[in-house]
């Protein structure tokens, strides 16, 4: 096994989560490779530093009041959620506002659909930044129920699959120094294009 592959396993080796065979492999490598041994010592030292971190515990009163505080927040949210009947002179404006909102949602929904329909694939690649935007929408704090209807769980799973495939490809290409989310848009687009080209090549060969 190459040093690079061994190093990737060092954290799991330290946490004792490798299979006995893998553990032995790493152990044998560490016995003979001083650079990986040094890397391992640094990982051990990092975990020792992290172990020294202080424990933080709020005072007992916080825990005693926890449930009532949550209840009071729930009630407050419900109170602010009550719709006050508007005066007639505002009604026209409000109806127009909702019509525009509905139209916006309709257009937005169609726009999102295009993303999943493009190409002959069952899904198309999205950059993690795009994925993140959608994830933010999916988990948006307000009016979650209406947003859920825009992005279904199935769509979200497609996004996850697409990102995983891109991530795996990136790792195969040796991109272990940075994670996908740290690449800039240009690098991501190039990576996406190369992956698509290679997939196309595989298909026609």
């Amino acid at each position, binding site marked *: 096994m190459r040093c690079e592959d061994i190093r*990737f396993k060092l*954290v*799991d080796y330290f946490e004792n*989560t490798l299979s006995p065979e893998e553990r032995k492999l790493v152990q044998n490598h560490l016995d003979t490779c001083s650079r990986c041994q040094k890397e391992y010592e*640094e*990982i051990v*030292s*990092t975990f*020792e*530093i*992290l172990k*020294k*971190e*202080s*424990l*933080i*515990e*709020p*005072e007992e009163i*916080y*825990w005693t009041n*926890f*449930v009532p*505080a*949550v*209840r009071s*927040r*729930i009630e407050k*949210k419900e109170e602010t959620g009550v719709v006050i009947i508007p005066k007639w002179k505002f009604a026209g404006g409000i109806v127009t506002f909702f019509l525009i909102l509905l139209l916006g949602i309709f257009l937005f929904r169609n726009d999102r659909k295009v993303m999943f329909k493009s190409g002959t694939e069952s899904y198309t690649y999205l950059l993690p930044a795009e994925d993140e935007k959608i*994830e*933010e929408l999916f*988990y948006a*704090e307000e009016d*979650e*129920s209406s947003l859920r209807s825009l992005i279904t*769980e199935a769509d*979200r*799973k497609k996004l*996850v699959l697409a*990102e*995983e495939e891109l*991530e*795996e490809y990136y*790792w195969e290409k040796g991109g*272990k120094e*940075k*994670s996908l*989310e*740290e690449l800039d848009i240009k690098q991501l687009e190039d990576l996406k294009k190369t992956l698509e080209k290679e997939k196309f090549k595989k298909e026609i060969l």
Partner: protein
Amino acid sequence: MDEEITQELIRRFKQGEEKAFNELVSLYKKGIFNLVFRMVRNQEDAMDLAQEVFVKVYHSLKDFRGESSFSTWLHRIAVNLSLNFTQRDRFRSFISLPDLTQPILSSNSPLKDYEKKELDKAIDQAVLSLPKKQKAVFVLRHYQELQYSEIAEVMGKSEGAVKANYFQAIKKLRKSLAHFGE
């Protein structure tokens, strides 16, 4: 956490028994506080956010269909709220005032106390500057002690991707904290 008790409480809550929700909150409150605290690294914010997590749970629990375990679902909500919070308040978290409640310092030596404070501060900064997915994976693994497979479910990623994120997070922390190991 006992999944059977949890399922029973959810069933009772869905049938309209409000008290069951309180019991659910009591069961999970400490774990969730610890999770959000390690994510946002500020006690006051974490105390506030932990309660917000359960407000969100209250409003969504009726639609919870049990496709994943309750604990996975709860962790996902807490992680997402914390990530959204850190994004919104990224600037604030770097200039925030010291916490009202400081960690209990056990030593009698002011120098040791000072060193410990410096170490805590350095760990806070190091964790806060991790990219968001790496930070979430690190917190779920290191502090919450979840298995890679559980983290993968919470994050909606493959186990391989989670391992990669954890590995990269440790690598970055190692760089940021190197001088404390000398």
